[in-house]
């Protein structure tokens, strides 16, 4: 059902204003009609009073004598003289209500009773114009020489008053309808104009698509009005929100480096440790240059060490390349991840369970960069949660499903909120897990969090049906 509450403010307020105008019009019309009615009734009362008083003066002596002809003659002449005027019927009766004569004896024969004509008869002072009745009956005492000698019942034609009232009603209705319509439209337009900035503001807010957009200066209302201040406040807020979004984007961008940064010392060890052996090998070559078997062994050692260093460097570079979005995921990417992550595991004395059962075919439809980022961030988080001597595991199964397990106590609440909800990121926490959430969402995947006797586990399921990003 249509509801006023569902309408936009810019339409609702002008409509309410227009409605109020109509209401004012209706009340004003009612007042005018009521005043007209009072004036007409007062006029009619005065006319009736004059009519009755005039007849009483003329008829008094005849009524006192019960002179049928004289009473009739007076009434008949009065009727003829006032032909086309207000008097329709006048009946004169004695005190007992017996008709002496009437202006129309056929309606009220001589010697008949006045009773049949009494229903609806009103006293002069109480005359009311009722509904659309074209005639009004008035009953008054006929007094002569301060004595009540009879009664006068008159039927007065009020059709002209009724017509006048109808005409005024029509004019008033038409006039007020026009005026009200004008006022209503004027009010509607004025309110709409006044509320246009609100519509502009609402439009900007609705169109921002997650990013508040500042309103151009030429659309800001002039002067120091509430609306101008509202616009300024909105612009300031949109600026702040945009700055925050930029900062968040920058932060997310950095997160990739952060995850590597966290690995940097481990990686430094990974590079540094073979260096001693490699330098010994060069010394050995130099010292035993004449012994080909020793040189060959030392060169083999050098080759293996340098190849390892090359792999580590390549994995690190790969992790940080920004243009890898088009590269499809391969099992080698998980080898790279293991290479990068293993030093951290060994530094903390943790045990790593690494199972990749998915084939290149299972992975081929997914982009490498986001999956590597997701896995690395979750592995680092798991390693931190498992603590020194703990246990961390990765299982990649067709589907594609990444299951990261650790022996830690499970996700703390702030981390869970970052990973599983869109709630605002609490100050002080990292944005790594929120980045995982955003990446999974972008890929149309799902994150499940479960905790059992074996520890905490997070499963990321990524759809493989979609085309590579």
């Amino acid at each position, binding site marked *: 059902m249509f509801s006023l509450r569902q309408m936009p403010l810019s339409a609702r307020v002008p409509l309410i204003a227009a409605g109020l105008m109509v209401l004012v019009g209706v009340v004003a019309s009612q007042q005018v009609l009521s005043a007209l009615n009072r004036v007409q009734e007062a006029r009619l009362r005065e006319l009736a009073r004059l009519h009755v008083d005039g007849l009483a003066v003329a008829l008094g002596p005849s009524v006192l004598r019960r002179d049928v*002809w004289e009473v009739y003659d007076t009434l008949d002449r009065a009727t003829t003289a006032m032909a086309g005027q207000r008097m329709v019927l006048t009946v004169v009766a004695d005190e007992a209500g017996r008709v002496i*004569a009437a202006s129309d*004896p*056929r309606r009220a024969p*001589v*010697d008949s009773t006045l009773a049949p004509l009494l229903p609806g008869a009103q006293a002069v002072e109480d005359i009311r114009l009722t509904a659309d009745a074209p005639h009004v009956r008035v009953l008054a005492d006929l007094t002569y020489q301060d004595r009540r000698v009879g009664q006068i019942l008159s039927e007065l034609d009020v059709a002209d008053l009724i017509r006048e009232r109808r005409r005024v009603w029509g004019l008033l209705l038409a006039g007020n309808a026009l005026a009200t319509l004008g006022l209503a439209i004027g009010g509607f337009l004025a309110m709409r104009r006044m509320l246009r900035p609100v519509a502009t503001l609402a439009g900007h807010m609705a169109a921002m698509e997650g990013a508040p957009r500042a309103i151009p200066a030429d659309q800001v209302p002039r002067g120091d009005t509430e609306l101008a201040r509202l616009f300024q406040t909105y612009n300031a807020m949109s600026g702040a929100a945009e700055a925050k979004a930029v900062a968040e984007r920058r932060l997310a961008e950095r997160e990739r480096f952060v995850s590597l940064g966290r690995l940097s010392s481990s990686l430094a060890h990974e590079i540094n440790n073979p260096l001693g052996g490699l330098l010994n090998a060069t010394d050995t070559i130099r010292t035993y240059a004449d012994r080909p078997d020793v040189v060959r062994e030392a060169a083999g050692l050098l080759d293996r060490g340098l190849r390892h260093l090359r792999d580590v460097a390549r994995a690190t570079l790969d992790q940080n390349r920004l243009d890898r979005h088009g590269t499809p995921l391969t099992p080698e990417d998980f080898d790279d991840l293991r290479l990068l992550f293993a030093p951290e595991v060994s530094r903390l004395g943790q045990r790593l369970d690494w199972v990749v059962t998915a084939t290149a075919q299972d992975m081929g439809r997914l982009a490498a960069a986001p999956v590597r980022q997701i896995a690395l961030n979750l592995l680092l988080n798991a390693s931190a949660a498992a603590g020194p001597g703990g246990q961390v595991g990765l299982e990649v199964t067709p589907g594609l499903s990444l299951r990261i397990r650790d022996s830690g106590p499970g996700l703390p609440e702030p981390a869970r909120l970052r990973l599983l909800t869109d709630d605002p990121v609490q100050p002080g926490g990292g944005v790594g897990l929120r980045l995982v959430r955003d990446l999974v969402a972008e890929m149309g995947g799902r994150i499940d969090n479960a905790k059992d006797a074996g520890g905490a586990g997070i499963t990321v399921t990524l759809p493989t049906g979609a085309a590579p990003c």
Partner: protein
Amino acid sequence: MTQPTRRAFMTGAAALIAAPSLLRAADPIRLGLTPVFLDNDAEVISHLQLALGQGSGRGIELSQRRTYQEVTGMLLEGSVDAAWLCGFPYLQHENVLSLIGVPLWRKAPLYQSYLIVGAEDAAQSLTDLRGGAHAFSDPDSNSGWLVTASELARMGERPETFFQRSLFAYGHRNVVRAVAGGLTRSGSVDGYVWEALAKVEPSLTAQTRVIARSEMLGFPPFVTRRDRAGDAAVQALQQALFGLSGTVEGQAALGLLQLDGVIAGEPALFDGIRARMRDVQGL
């Protein structure tokens, strides 16, 4: 009825008050009238006054009263020199009154009394009107009372018991109005007035219907007191009346009255009324 007593009193009073006519020789002629005419009394009076003034060479003073009784009283006590009365009051005071002239209507000094009812009324005769309301013109009017009362007397009835209610409208036109307006079911009216009204006010008479006409009776005459019949004023008035049809003003007045002229009438002209008076004697 108490009227004979009043009439006797008035006659006596008139005789006592009567003064020598010579003293009033230069005075205007005073003529008493009843509202026997149509609705335009003022115009008729004005023309009649002018025509009679020219014809008599004297000023004319017209005194109109509401009832025959009042005019008869004025004549008897001498405050008017002559009066245009109905044949009924003339005969009531025949011993002291004398004819000056009788108007001609439709070439004859005769007229009828009409019994009228509302145009839609189904009544065919007087007997059908029993129990209804009836309008008479004047208790001293021949056509407006005597004719109907004598008809009832011949039936052994009296107006006040035959009719449920009867009223006097004091004017033949008023009788027509009463019946036309529905105030009464029926009315007794001067046939001359009804016919004259039918010409000048046909919308009024059209609301009535004549159900009975009397025999021809003597037209309402101009009369004077018998003892003043020889007065110069009365003589001058008589000549002026006889000469009305010979002057322009007179013809204008006669035209308004729808009369043809005035002739000297004989008392025998009123024998019909006399007979009806006898019929109501016992009432």
